[in-house]
């Protein structure tokens, strides 16, 4: 509702003041650009999403595995935690050129960058969930002589599912951000794919509506990813705990 009013005002302002589209295109011009340039934009969107989704899967595997290792031994915790924090606070723009240099295959390089950006929330939330296993249940497992594997698979991991899902939702949007940032770095080095490249190229050629169209697609993808993972979270928890 407010969104529609906002778009209307935006369009009205652009028309009323006669702002040229290469400064600020109105919503109509942007929507037109999405359709006119679909031939370039849709493959670019697809390519960016592929990087983000692959990175999210990798981040899930790595984040959960590291969280389990950290919960299993203090030594692992001491070894992993500082590196995880360092990777988290290092801006990916700063290390992306190195990674693109080291990893020959461009797609793999982008995935590595996006994974670095995305894995931390999954790691820290899953670790918090594993640590919050109810101590009475841990006692009970001990009382009946449970093995470490039984405690992990039948107690700790199921207990950590809600926290993991929160981490997954945050990581989902971060994977998209990471993918686009890495594409920017790679794109300025001549690697022509992804929405970031569309934005760079369109801005060089002053095709401002196409640039905005790419931004709009990016924003929409972020919303869709966030909403889809939120839906997954509700679905899983409802199935797990009963209605």
């Amino acid at each position, binding site marked *: 509702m407010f969104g529609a009013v906002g778009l209307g005002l935006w369009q009205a302002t652009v028309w009323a003041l006669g702002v040229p589209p290469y400064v600020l295109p109105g919503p109509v011009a942007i929507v037109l650009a999405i359709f006119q340039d679909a031939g370039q934009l849709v493959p670019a969107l697809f390519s960016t999403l592929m990087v983000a989704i692959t990175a999210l899967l990798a981040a899930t595997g790595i984040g959960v595995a590291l969280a389990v290792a950290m919960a299993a031994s203090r030594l692992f915790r001491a070894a992993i935690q500082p590196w995880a924090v360092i990777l988290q606070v290092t801006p990916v723009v700063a290390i992306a050129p190195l990674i693109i240099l080291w990893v020959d295959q461009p797609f793999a390089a982008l995935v590595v960058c996006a994974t670095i950006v995305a894995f931390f929330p999954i790691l820290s939330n899953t670790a918090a969930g594993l640590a919050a296993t109810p101590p009475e249940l841990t006692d009970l497992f001990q*009382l*009946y002589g449970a093995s470490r594997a039984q405690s992990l698979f039948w107690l700790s991991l199921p207990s950590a599912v809600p926290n993991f899902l929160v981490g997954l939702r945050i990581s989902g949007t971060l994977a998209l951000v990471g993918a686009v940032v890495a594409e920017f770095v790679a794109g300025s080095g001549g690697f022509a794919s992804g929405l970031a490249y569309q934005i760079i190229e369109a801005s060089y050629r002053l095709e401002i509506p196409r640039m905005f169209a790419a931004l709009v697609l990016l924003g929409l993808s972020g919303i869709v990813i966030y909403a889809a993972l939120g839906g997954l979270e509700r679905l899983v928890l409802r199935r*797990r705990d009963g*209605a």
Partner: protein
Amino acid sequence: MLAIRSVTKRFDDGTLAVEEVSAEIKSGEFVALLGPSGCGKSTLLRLLAGLTAPSDGEIVWDAGARPGLGDIGFVFQDATLMPWADAAENVYLPLRLMGQRRAEAKARIDAALAQVGLAEFAESRPKALSGGMKMRVSIARALVSDPGLLLMDEPFAALDEFTRHRLQGDLHRLWRQSGKTVVFVTHSIYEAAFLASRVLVMSPRPGRIAADIAAKIGDGPERRDSAAYLALVGEITQALRGVMAL
């Protein structure tokens, strides 16, 4: 059944939770362990269950009574069920950890659920059960391996008065019928007096056994308002008053 011989528990951080506790518990007794909070009651139960080791002293089991897997049942203050498992799966847990298949265990799971009056709720998840029903599942879980010794740590403390009364009555009946040994931690004088065949009163931290009172209340529907019950409440109150004045 067992003897606690000058058991002391000091935690790594230096907290002295239990000091020089000695007591004997006979088979078939219902022992209420009563004391102010923080006096080491939970610690003593965990020592009995073997979940933590004494810093000093020892727990000696009667010949042939040393518990193996499944010979001790434990009920906590919260029902602590696994939210992702239904009532039957929660009750199955001890047998599952002991290596029994679900099909083999089915009869015992059904029997344990029936024992606590929840036969029809086998497939309900904890979320769909009331507080009292969750506690019943928790008790069924402790009973499913048919333990000789049942350890209960303030199991009814978080329930409303009506539910608590009903569960106390059910537990008392279950103990009469099964002949199990029960050690029941509580900080309610009335609960101790109603349930127990023997009341051990603990002093504030570090906990020691300050009084050992045998209960002689006739069974039956008037149990809660018999003169003997009221006299026992008075006796326990006296003992606690002595302890708190120390």
